[in-house]
């Protein structure tokens, strides 16, 4: 941390940790319901639990991305954030909108469009909130002494994410058109512009942690985000195979989504090579673990598991089954959750002055949560493949199949418990750092000068 205003990032990260904890509780409710135990149905029916689970994911990741931007942009632009007070206003309004939406879901107040359940009046508040955030970031960048590729890619990702929220707000009477443009938001976020955000954060971390020349890292950053958009934009077509639009998407979506793993492969190779090439041995091993881990797990979760069911011939059978949940969980974990954990692990010691660089709790948090998530992915995968064969091939009744799948959800719950233990350790480590303070600046300067 080189600028006092970077401290605001801490509170965005803290909000992320709080919302993540809630997300896990609702995930467990869903897991138990799938296993046949839906005792909370009266108060939290499955559709409420699902909307809360997925929306909390989006909000805590966005809060993490915003915290990352508030930490990275001042350091990259070499300028204090233009207004810390407004950043706090933005944080509080983000938390209020998020909480209002989550509470509303328990009272049947939603739009009922997968991933975009936030009701329309709250949508407008989201827009205002994001405009304020983007204003602060862009002004800081504009007033800064330098404009680095890392900062530009990160900002471009955040800006495009804000713009792409708008197509999701258009009303359609047709379910086909509604679905078509909903994917402009959801797909182009997670398989498009969010990868720019991930790439920007990854690039910043690799520059800081490996000491490899900025020019080299940023050159490859361009190649990676280039591959992301080259494959990801037309790859949107894999959501259009079977929703009532022209067959041309079977060809276009099939070809370009099959290329999508290339961007993740490039990201994994990039991170590992930069680590090997780096001569600087940064003592923050925990941040390094999450950084390299994110690049590798995202390749497996988003790249390989996405490829596993992206071809139209396969997707014809897997579309609308638990196979999607298998891919979704490891992809979001690897690509976005882990990169947020990485930037938090890097920034926290710098903001608080407490150098918990390589603790056994930090390492255990990494390994236990990752093994837990891989176990969950396997449970979802086995359940998904079994569902496809029984329901789609053998034409068995949906609910009969669901009863047969319950055992896999008990495995899922066991592995999810392990995952939650890992996350709990991470959150304990987070709060053990204490709160950010200005003395941390002096400590950082002292260490750098040694």
């Amino acid at each position: 941390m080189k600028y006092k205003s970077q401290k605001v990032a801490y509170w965005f990260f803290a909000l992320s940790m709080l919302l993540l904890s809630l997300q896990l509780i609702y995930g467990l409710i869903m897991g138990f319901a799938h296993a046949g135990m839906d005792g909370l149905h009266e108060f939290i029916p499955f559709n409420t639990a699902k909307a809360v689970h997925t929306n909390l994911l989006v909000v805590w990741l966005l809060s993490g991305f915003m915290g990352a931007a508030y930490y990275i942009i001042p350091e990259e632009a070499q300028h204090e954030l233009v207004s810390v007070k407004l950043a706090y206003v933005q944080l509080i309004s983000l938390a209020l909108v998020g909480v209002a939406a989550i509470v509303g879901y328990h009272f049947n107040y939603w739009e009922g469009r997968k991933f975009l359940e936030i009701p329309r009046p709250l949508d407008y508040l989201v827009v205002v909130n994001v405009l304020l955030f983007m204003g602060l970031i862009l002004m800081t960048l504009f007033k800064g002494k330098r404009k680095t590729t890392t900062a530009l890619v990160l900002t471009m990702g955040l800006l495009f994410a804000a713009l792409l929220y708008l197509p999701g707000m258009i009303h359609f009477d047709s379910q086909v058109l509604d679905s078509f443009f909903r994917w402009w938001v959801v797909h182009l976020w997670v398989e498009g512009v969010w990868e720019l955000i991930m790439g920007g954060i990854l690039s910043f971390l690799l520059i800081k942690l490996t000491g490899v020349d900025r020019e080299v890292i940023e050159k490859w950053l361009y190649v990676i985000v280039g591959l992301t958009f080259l494959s990801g934009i037309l790859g949107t077509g894999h959501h259009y195979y079977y929703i009532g639009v022209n067959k041309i998407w079977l060809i276009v979506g099939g070809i370009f989504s099959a290329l999508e793993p290339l961007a993740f492969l490039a990201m994994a190779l990039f991170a590992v090579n930069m680590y090997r090439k780096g001569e600087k041995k940064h003592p923050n091993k925990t941040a390094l673990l999450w950084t390299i881990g994110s690049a590798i797990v995202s390749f497996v979760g988003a790249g390989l598991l996405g490829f596993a069911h992206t071809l139209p011939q396969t997707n014809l059978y897997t579309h609308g089954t638990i196979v999607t949940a298998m891919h979704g969980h490891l992809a979001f974990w690897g690509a976005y959750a882990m990169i947020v954990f990485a930037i938090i692990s890097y920034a926290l010691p710098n903001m608080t002055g407490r150098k918990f660089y390589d603790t056994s709790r930090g390492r255990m948090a990494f390994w236990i949560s990752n093994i837990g998530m891989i176990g969950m992915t396997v449970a979802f995968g086995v359940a998904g493949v079994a569902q496809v064969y029984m329901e789609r091939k053998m034409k068995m009744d949906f609910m009969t199949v669901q009863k047969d799948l319950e055992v896999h959800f008990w495995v899922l719950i066991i592995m999810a418990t392990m995952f939650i233990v890992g996350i709990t350790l991470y959150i304990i480590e987070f709060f053990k750092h204490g709160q950010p303070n200005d003395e941390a600046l002096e400590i950082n300067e002292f260490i750098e000068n040694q």
Partner: protein
Amino acid sequence: MLSKKQARAFFLGGTVVTFLIFIGLTVFSLGEAQDQSHSENITEAVVRGKKLWDSNNCMGCHTIMGEGGYYAPELTKVIDRLNIRYDGAGKEVIKSILKSPTPWEPHGRKMVAYNMSEEEASDIVAFFDWIDDIDLNGFETVISPLAKDKTNN
């Protein structure tokens, strides 16, 4: 060896070209001549049905055209499937579930009791009826347990 300038050109050029193709394909596939959804059949009842579908977040449990919650049955072609099971009374069965004041519990898995009026239930059925006729590029033939095309064969 690739320079940073070339890498940036690759990023910007690739993005612009693929985005333009994407917009072009969107315009093409949503054109009237390509309509596979029989949008002319979207009546006021269908629109009201969709509104009810959204406002109750039915997609949070069910799937429709393969999209949704994976917790409750796929509802594309649901009328046909229930027609087979209940001697042509598919629509009435759906309406009775939606109008029920107590939760429907197939195999012990509970559905929210929506306690809908006759008109609301009819609107949802109209929405399903419209969905049933959409050409889904073959997906309709694999939806369990018996798709319309399979039954007609």
